[in-house]
Every structure is written in structure tokens, then in C-alpha cells.
């Protein structure tokens, strides 16, 4: 403040007394108070105390303060500022707390007396707002320099001392940080273990012992070449799409039923699941993969895969509320579902948490309420629909617009869907627009060889923007998917919050590496397989568990100087049980299968399609878990126990709990016991019943290696004692049956072992 102290104190006295006399005593005589410097003295007050609720798309109480005209226009309660008369200006009473219970700002620090004085003087002097002076959008300010919202850069690949270790550019980025931290990468993992890890990583299945042997032989001849060949072979396997399609289904929160109270079966959800699997197998460019999921029907209305892709937008929970039911309830349901779509796109594709903006603006969130509802326009004209797909009676659950005319959309303040005073149009967040506008994308969506469809093409405009790495959100889109691939291959992501790349997220552990990979993805025409190759061909990927020194220095493995044992996901666990027992049914695609579920585990009432209680185990139910029917409110206990997500919200990172119910599952679950029995049968057949052969064969099938001497001895002892004891006491069986049960018990124990669940 550069006011004379006397002037300030007279203002303060006036405010404190709050009486007309005191106020008039404080009234400055013309010329006695220097002109208020708006930019230095008033603008910061508006910025700090008022802008969050009364600017940049927010207008609490209908009042905005972004310009002099807005300020003078007042709000729902009438004028707030009377130029030249602070005494009659309600804003002064509010900020000074002289207006009953209502006080501004309602939360947060209040205006100091000096600030109130400045505001007063400014009003009394006629509210001079110099041209060109503007409030700055706090959201924009906070995000302007944020790394995730920048255009893609191509960082130079570092020169490093340990260049001999490096196999791909990834290694150079990693070793640079390791060297700086005084760490060394771990030694290379033995061929047998590395092969097994890659097999699980790319296919989600254990390799056959013969495949391991073949690889080890080839690797002994020519290590580098053998690894490349193996990588290529596995990337071409159809199981690859099943594995990585399953990862994607977590993002899409795909399920085969509606959830909620009725939990109706979705008989035609599976074409979307098959689209995901096929896309990963055929290496559909990731930008197109995303575009089709948002607007495949608007891009390629004749292409069954493109149509099915919009199942992404229909994947979330859903309740059918009949028209006779209360309108308010139906609207709430509808906007909850649209929110689910926006949230899934936000966290799943862009790493933006946009759900909060549904109700209010927050200065740290990347998106405002206006952004939220402007994005919602893209989906407001559409809904779920079952449409014919290809020939015969094939159908798919998809998302469809109701027609070519966009439905009117409003900014619902505080998510109040009856508040329809502020119309909004389709618009993309300014933060993620560079040199192009929403209109440009809409024009592109209309002109760019668009087929005639009864659709608004708003989703297509959105899809164009989201995948545009130069001018739209494509750079962010690339960073987010690169991080996900890294997470699945290396165990920990580069950006810890995989669904949140906003200003409050932790920065990447290796920013340059993330940037280089994202750029590489875009340069490779968005080829995910190219990226997979880069990652698994790296020396970093082929490291071993490392030394005590590495573990002590970097227990969390932030520097990626080794690998850590990885727990199989729920589906990979079940698929491995099937593979090892020799009963995996490799049939791909098509309607989902329903496995038997104990009636004890069915805990919901009033389902429109109850889960059957009479299912009998059969070969048709031994398919990979990605084809299992996911009934939202009747989760399959084995998968649920091992942290399969519940498909209620998009899930980018699974929980990895270690709890007793998992152990109970491995010990007592009927399916686990049954596959242990099948494994025993397989061993007895393959080893002609020779116990001494059964043990090593079992180890090789289940763990990919032969038992050591101790294990061999303990296993034989177990089989002997178990067979003997099972002929003693209550519930005994004859010698032959006892021997067989001992093998089953042994197989089940292998299934339960930590080495079976944790891959080195």
C-alpha cells in the first residue's frame, strides 16, 4: 500500500464502527486519496478471493466479476456494485461481514481491512478498470507449465558410460539415472526364467516345458537373436490379444451385465470384448483404436468392428428405469451414466480426473464445470442400443446418437439437472487445444469423408481432437497409454497415478523416457506392438532380481535396476491352473461362458436375470478367463478373491491384496481342487504312474523348472506319507485311491505355492 497511514486508519475506523457517521467521516474528500491502482491493489483481491466462484465459467449467485460490465451487472440478488458509492454497494457489506449471516468469501481467508479499504476506495473513485487488464484463470495458470499438457518433445537419447549394457534407447535413459544414483543394473536373468516371464507378460500363460527347453537351446547358440525371435513369435500369438485385451477391459470397466438392482444380462456385450482382443492382435493403431471406441459408428458405419468398438461407451453400469417412474429419478440415473462415460474417458484415456467438475470448479482441476458440460454434449444426444452386427442374428451393445440434431445441453450448476439456464455447446478444454478450435474439429468431422449417418458427429469431433497429437489431446493420450504399457511390463508405472496426470500428480520417475516413448509411439503410427517390442527387447526388461545392494539402495525399484517378483492377476492365475492341468480350452471369441458359482456366493436379490444354479463343470467352461461372463453383482469368487476389479468404475491399476480368503480359495475352492485332480491325472498319464518321474514333471509344468534335491526329497516324502496316512484313521481309502489322492494333494500344494503365483 502506498496510501498515507492516516487515510488507511480512517477507513478502518469507518469499517469497524460500521455507522453512517463513521463512514461519512471516512469518506475521502476529492483529491485527498490518491487514485487506486486497479492492477496492483484491486485485481489481486478479485483474483484471490472472488474468482474461484465468480469467474471462468462459474457464476455463483448469477454474479460474475471478469470485467467491469459484469461487476456492474450484478447477480441474482440485484446490483452489487454502485460506482462512486461504496456505501450503497452490497459487495462491501458482504466482504466486511456486515450483511447478516452471509459473508464473502464464504470459506477461506477473509479480506483484510486494508483490502476492504482498497475495494471501497476503488468503487468510490468510479470503478476504473483499465483496458487490457484481465483476471488470470487460476486453472490455466496452474496448468500452463504442467508437463503433461505440453506438446510432445523428442528428448535426445543420453550418452552414457555403460553403453555396452544397452540394447534399446530405453536402456540409455534408465542407465543414465542409475549411474547418477551410483547404482548398477542387475545381472541378466537366466534364459529359462526370462523366457517364462516374457511368456506370462505377453500372453498371460505359462510356457510349455518343451518351449522353454527349445528357447534355452536357441539362446545358448545365439542369445540376442533367440530373444528377438521369441518376442516376435509371442507378439504374433492370438493369446497376446487375450492378455492385453483383458488389461484394456479394466480401463473400459467391461462386464456382461448391467449391475445395479436388475443386473440384466448383456447377451451382446461380448462383441466389444472381441473388438479389444482383435485390435491388440492386429495391432490396430492406438489412435484409431481410441477413435473407434468413441465414434466408430460415425467413422465406419459399415465396419462391424468399428460399430462394436463403441461398446466402450456402453460398458458401464446401467439401470433401466421405466418411463412410469419418477422423472427426477430417471434424470439422475441418466446423468450418472453420462458422468460415468466422461469419467472413464477422463481417467482411462487422458489421465484427467474430471468427475469433480460435474458439481463445481476447483482451481487445481484441469477442467472447469463448463469444460465438463461442453464435453458432455458429445454424448448427450446418444444412448446405449443393441444393433445388428454383420450377418445372421449377431448383435452388439453399442452407443448410438438419436439423430443428426444435437440435443440441447446446459451447464448444470452443482449438478442440478433441472438448472437449465446456461446452454452449452460441444467444446474441448482450452488447455488441450493448440492452434485449433472445437469448431475446426467439428468441421473436420463433417467434411472428412464422413458417411451419411443419423448422428451428430460430435463424438467424431471429440475423437479427432483426442487423438490429435499436434493440436489436441493426442500427446496426453500417448503419454497415458505408454505409462500403462510400462506398468504392465515393469510392474510399476513411470507415473504412479496412472489415471491422473493432472497438476497434483507426482511427476514421472523418468520424465525424458516417458516423453521419448510417447513420441516414439506417435511416430510409429501409434503401433502398440512396436512399443511392446521396444520394452521387452530392452536390457532392463531382462534383468534378474539383483543383489542385496540394489535392494537396499532402492527398495521400491524406482530406478528399475532389477526386476521384482510379479503376482499373477486373477485371470492369469486361473488360466495358468487350466494350462498346467492340461485342460485349457483355447476357443476364442463369442458369447461368454458362465462357470458354476456356489449358491453361498450369490448375495443379491431381485435380479432380472438370476445367475444359474445348475451349471455343471465341462470342457466348454475351461476357456480363458477373459471369456468368462462377468455378472456385476454376482462376481466369480476365485477372481474376486484375487482382486479382479468389480467393473463399477474404470480401473487402471489393480489392487494386490494378500489376505486369508485367497488362501482359503487355494485350499478349499471346488474349482481349484478339481483342476488339481486334473493335473494329477495328466501326470499319471504322462509319467505312467512312476512317482519318481511325477515330481520333476510336475515342477516343470507348474514352475518351469526341475526341483532341486531338497524339493525332490520333500516331495517324495510327502507323497509317501500322505498316501500312507490317507489309509489311516477316519475316512480312509484303499491304497490305490490313497496314492492318487496324495498326488492330487501334491498338485494342489504346487498350485498354492508362492512360486506358482509370483513370477520372477
Amino acid at each position: 500500500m502506498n496510501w498515507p497511514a492516516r487515510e488507511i486508519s480512517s477507513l478502518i475506523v469507518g469499517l469497524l464502527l460500521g455507522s453512517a457517521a463513521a463512514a461519512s467521516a471516512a469518506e475521502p474528500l476529492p483529491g485527498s486519496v490518491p487514485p487506486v491502482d486497479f492492477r496492483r491493489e484491486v485485481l489481486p483481491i478479485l483474483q484471490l478471493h472472488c474468482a474461484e466462484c465468480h469467474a471462468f465459467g462459474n457464476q455463483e449467485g448469477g454474479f460474475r466479476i471478469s470485467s467491469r460490465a459484469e461487476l456492474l451487472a450484478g447477480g441474482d440478488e440485484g446490483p452489487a456494485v454502485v460506482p462512486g458509492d461504496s456505501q450503497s454497494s452490497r459487495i462491501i457489506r458482504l466482504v466486511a461481514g456486515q450483511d447478516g449471516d452471509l459473508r464473502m468469501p464464504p470459506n477461506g481467508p477473509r479480506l483484510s481491512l486494508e483490502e476492504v479499504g482498497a475495494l471501497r476506495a476503488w468503487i468510490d473513485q468510479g470503478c476504473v478498470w483499465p483496458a487490457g487488464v484481465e483476471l488470470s484463470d487460476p486453472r490455466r495458470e496452474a496448468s500452463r507449465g504442467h508437463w503433461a499438457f505440453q506438446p510432445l518433445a523428442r528428448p535426445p537419447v543420453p550418452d552414457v558410460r555403460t553403453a555396452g549394457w544397452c540394447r534399446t534407447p530405453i536402456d540409455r535413459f534408465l542407465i543414465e539415472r542409475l549411474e547418477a544414483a551410483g547404482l548398477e543394473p542387475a545381472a541378466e536373468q537366466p534364459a529359462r526364467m526370462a523366457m517364462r516371464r516374457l511368456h506370462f507378460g505377453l500372453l498371460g500363460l505359462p510356457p510349455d516345458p518343451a518351449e522353454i527347453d527349445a528357447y534355452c537351446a536357441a539362446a545358448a547358440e545365439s542369445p540376442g537373436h533367440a530373444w528377438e525371435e521369441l518376442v516376435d513369435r509371442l507378439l504374433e500369438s492370438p493369446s497376446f490379444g487375450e492378455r492385453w485385451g483383458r488389461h484394456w477391459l479394466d480401463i473400459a470397466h467391461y462386464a456382461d451385465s448391467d449391475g445395479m438392482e436388475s443386473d440384466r444380462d448383456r447377451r451382446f456385450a461380448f462383441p466389444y470384448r472381441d473388438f479389444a482382443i482383435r485390435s491388440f492382435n492386429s495391432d490396430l493403431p492406438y489412435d484409431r483404436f481410441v477413435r473407434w471406441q468413441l465414434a466408430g459408428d460415425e467413422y465406419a458405419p459399415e465396419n462391424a468392428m468399428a460399430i462394436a468398438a463403441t461398446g466402450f461407451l456402453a460398458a458401464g453400469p446401467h439401470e433401466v428405469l421405466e418411463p412410469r417412474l419418477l422423472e427426477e429419478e430417471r434424470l439422475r440415473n441418466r446423468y450418472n451414466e453420462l458422468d460415468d462415460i466422461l469419467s472413464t474417458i477422463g481417467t482411462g484415456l487422458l489421465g484427467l480426473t474430471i468427475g469433480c467438475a460435474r458439481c463445481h470448479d476447483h482451481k487445481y482441476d484441469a477442467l472447469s464445470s463448463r469444460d465438463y458440460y461442453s464435453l458432455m454434449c458429445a454424448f448427450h444426444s446418444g444412448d446405449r442400443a443393441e444393433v445388428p452386427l454383420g450377418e445372421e442374428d449377431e448383435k452388439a451393445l453399442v452407443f448410438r446418437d438419436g439423430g443428426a440434431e444435437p440435443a440441447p445441453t446446459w451447464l448444470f450448476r452443482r449438478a442440478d439437472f433441472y438448472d437449465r439456464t446456461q446452454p452449452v455447446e460441444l467444446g474441448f478444454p482450452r488447455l488441450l487445444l493448440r492452434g485449433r478450435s472445437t469448431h475446426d474439429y467439428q468441421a473436420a468431422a463433417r467434411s472428412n469423408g464422413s458417411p451419411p449417418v443419423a448422428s451428430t458427429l460430435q463424438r467424431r469431433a471429440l475423437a479427432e481432437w483426442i487423438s490429435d497429437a499436434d493440436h489436441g489431446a493426442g500427446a496426453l493420450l500417448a503419454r497415458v497409454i505408454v505409462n500403462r504399457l510400462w506398468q504392465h511390463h515393469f510392474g510399476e508405472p513411470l507415473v504412479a497415478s496412472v489415471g491422473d496426470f493432472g497438476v497434483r500428480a507426482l511427476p514421472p520417475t523418468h520424465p525424458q523416457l516417458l516423453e521419448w516413448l510417447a513420441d516414439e509411439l506417435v511416430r510409429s503410427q501409434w503401433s502398440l506392438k512396436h512399443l511392446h517390442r521396444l520394452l521387452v527387447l530392452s536390457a532392463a526388461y531382462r534383468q534378474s532380481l539383483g543383489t542385496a545392494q540394489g535392494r537396499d539402495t532402492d527398495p521400491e525399484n524406482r530406478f528399475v535396476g532389477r526386476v521384482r517378483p510379479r503376482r499373477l492377476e486373477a485371470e492369469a492365475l486361473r488360466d495358468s491352473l487350466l494350462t498346467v492341468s492340461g485342460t485349457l480350452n483355447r476357443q476364442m471369441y463369442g458369447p461368454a461362458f458362465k462357470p458354476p458359482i456356489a449358491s453361498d456366493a450369490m448375495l443379491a436379490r431381485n435380479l432380472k436375470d438370476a445367475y444359474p444354479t445348475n451349471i455343471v463343470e465341462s470342457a466348454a467352461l475351461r476357456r480363458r478367463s477373459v471369456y468368462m461372463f462377468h455378472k456385476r453383482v454376482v462376481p466369480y469368487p476365485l477372481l474376486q478373491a484375487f482382486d479382479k476389479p468389480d467393473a463399477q468404475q474404470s480401473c487402471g491399476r489393480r489392487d494386490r491384496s494378500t489376505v486369508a480368503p485367497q488362501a482359503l480359495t487355494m485350499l478349499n475352492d471346488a474349482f481349484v481342487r478339481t483342476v488339481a485332480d486334473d493335473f494329477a491325472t495328466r501326470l499319471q498319464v504322462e509319467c505312467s504312474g512312476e512317482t519318481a518321474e511325477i515330481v520333476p514333471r510336475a515342477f516343470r509344468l507348474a514352475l518351469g523348472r526341475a526341483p532341486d534335491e531338497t524339493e525332490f526329497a520333500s516331495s517324495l516324502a510327502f507323497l509317501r506319507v500322505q498316501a500312507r496316512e490317507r489309509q489311516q484313521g477316519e475316512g480312509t481309502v484303499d491304497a490305490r485311491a490313497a496314492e492318487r489322492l496324495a498326488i492330487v494333494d501334491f498338485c494342489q500344494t504346487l498350485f498354492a505355492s508362492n512360486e506358482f503365483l509370483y513370477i520372477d
Partner: protein
Amino acid sequence: MHDFASPTCRRSRLVPNRRQWLARAGAGFGTVALADLLSAKSTSTVADESTSPFAVRRPHFSARARAIIWLFMEGAPSAVDTFDPKPELTRRDGQTMKIDVFNGNPGPLMKSPFAFRQYGESGTWVCDQYPHVARHVDQFAFIKSLYSESNDHVPALYQINTGISRPGFPSAGAWITYGLGSENQNLPGFVVLGNNQGIKGGPLNWNSGFLPTAYQGTLFRSEGTPILNLKRPADVRREDQRRQLDLLAAWNAAHRAARPGESELQGRIEAFELAYRMQSEAAAVIDYSQESAETLQLYGLDRAETRSYGSKCLLARRLVERGVRFIQVYSDGEWDAHSNLTGNHKQHCLATDVPIHGLLTDLKQRGLLDSTLVIWGGEFGRMPVSQGKDGRDHNPHGFIAWMAGAGVRGGASLGETDEVGYRATVDRTSVHDLHATMLHLMGLDHTRLTYAHNGRNFRLTDVAGNVLWPLLG
């Protein structure tokens, strides 16, 4: 993440160490269980107890309650027909009132079919269908002004259980177990006592949402196999399984030794031993053979109409005795009286009256009521107008619950609905307020029990919630 380092926490509760809880877990379950515990301890390196998701954690401040029993009246009981009679409703019986209802076609105002009488020193009104519950009213603190968002059961169930009417958020029981851990490591910390028909909306009502899955509620049965997969396969005897576990322990120990620093591997080794112990302990919890005939009768186990709910109430007490934190006891069938309100509410009052009386009496005489919060209520309420001839439609605008036990000021009452019982008008109370109060009684500050998820610190109470101080003693 956790914010347990409370500067205001002066009287921190005694936190039992691992040995203490092992001993406690073993106490009273016979020598077999105890021997198992000791052998488990001797054969494996004991992991840092803080690695267990259920390790006891300090509350933010001194707790009034160490357990909650939530008597959940699924389907929504009517306030004006149970504990909140409205003379004006009786007077205006048959008159029309403009109300939008969930199923459309509202009828006229309908008086309660039940007679009411005042009970206790508090003079609390209770309907004639709840004569046993009525004896305890001086211990109740009523909330007569609850409201929620949705007119539909499942969103309302999700909201009263998780604070949010959409599916997929962590339930109150999950939050509390996350905040405090559990006092018994051999049983789940959050137990749900369901019913044979299932609950609308299913397991999402006791979901862990984005919290670690360890905190989700476990459905527990009072008969047969209490927990899923607790029973061994038909062809595996206990000793057969013990030898499997011994072989497993040997393999896992060697595997673990070769991978130092991987505490998860140790956690899984312990999980198997815990699972083995749970088989005996969980079975013991539902073995009522040591309960006296008087006790069984007190809970109504001697009568067909009260046996089911009585058995669950007794089980709830036995779980509280064993250190389980949070127990939800669902009613059998729904109070969802779209038609024949009289028949529906009569039946549900009858099924729960004696069991609730038994539970409150038993908790009190065992000295457990001082440390146990008991809550009664449903997901919303019912309309003062009729549906069809003699039913009542859903009403989220005003409903009732009561609390009793730990930290609760008996005889208190908060809030009112309007004169016919349609809409909460005085001291309107949100579900968040109820949750904030539950957490408070458990020693948790609802604004500080947070979990970072998707760029935000989430709370059970979202961005709202006020502790209901007038109801606390």
C-alpha cells in the same frame, strides 16, 4: 493416505502387539487353535505387524465405541408407523396432498394402522408392534430428519452404505476397518450378516471400492459354512491339509529366503496359516452350544418367527466379543410395503422385536453396550400418502434411524419431519452426518480419514458431514 498422526491424540488407546492379539485370538478356542497359533509363530518369521492390513491402528482421538452393530432394515421402514406418529396425518387421513412419488399415482394421505403409546422416562412414542424394543427407548437417540438423494432402493442403499448413490465406492464398514484395523486377526474385521434372499444391489453394499480389497465386508452365515470356502473339500481331512500346509511352508520358506525384501511373499505365507486357523475359529463363532437356554430364548431362537433374526443378533454379539469391528445385520426380507403396509410392517416388527430386545439386553448385561454402537434404520423411508389401497411408496425426503450404546445420549431426539411426515424440515440430517457421527464414535475424524484416489483425497463423507453432537452423551 492415512492421517493418523493426530496432534490432538493425547489418550491413545492401548494398541495390542502381535503377541497379545495372538494370545487373544487363541483364548477360549481350545488348545488346538492355540497350538496352531504357536506353531505358526515358531515356523515362520513374524512379519512387521504394520504390513497386515488388519493391524490395529490408533484412532484420531479417544474412541467411545470399539464396534458397531448396524441393524439394517432393508427395504425402508416407515417412520410414521414405527417411532414417529403424526396426529396431523391421522386427522387428515383420506385428504389429498400433492406429492411426486417414485411409482406414480399417489393416493391420499393415509394414517398409520398401528396404535402408539409412550414409553420410558423419555416418553418416546412407539407403535404397538414393537413392545420389546419399546422397553429400551430411554437408551435410544433418534434421528427423525434423515434425507437422502434417490427414490430408488439400490442407489439409496449404496448411499447409506457408502455415502454416494452411485455404485463402486467404499462402504462405511470398509472405511472403519481401513482406519482402525481389526482386533481379531483370525476373523474378518467387517462382517455382513445377510439373508437367504440376498440384498438388493448385492456385494457393492459392503464393497471396499477404491480402498484395498482387504477391507471389503465378508458375508457370514449363522448356519452351515459361515464363510465361503471355509469348508475343506470332501476328500481332504484336517490332518491331510495340515501336511499340505507343512510342505507348502517348507517350499515357501526357501522361496522367500532367496527373495529378501519382498514382504508380500511373507504376507502370503502368513495368510495360509491364518486361513487354517480361520477354519476353526469361524466355525467356533457359529457354535452356539455353549450359550445357555436362557440366552437363546432371550434372542428368540426358540420361536420360528424370530429365530432367523435372533440368530444373527446373537452372532453379532459373539463377533463383537471376538473383536470384530463392524457388523451389519440385514433384516430377512424387505420392509418395502408398496401394498399391505399393515401386514408387511407387522411381520418385520415381529421378526426383529424380540431379537433386538435380546441383543440390547445381552450387550448391556455383558458390559458390551458401553463400547458398542447399535444403529437401527433402513435406506430411506415411506410416504405419508398411500400407494394402491394400503401401501406406501418410497420416501427419501424424510426418514428415521436410532442409535444406542457407546457414546449415545439416551432419550435424545434430533430433527423433525413436517406435520404429516413427508419431508425433513427441522435439523435436516444427511447420510453424511450419520456417517460422520459413526466415525466420530469410533475415534475417527471424518475429515481426516482420507484415501488418495484419482487425484483426490476421498472421504466417506465426501465434502460434507457434521457430527450429530446433540445425540452424543
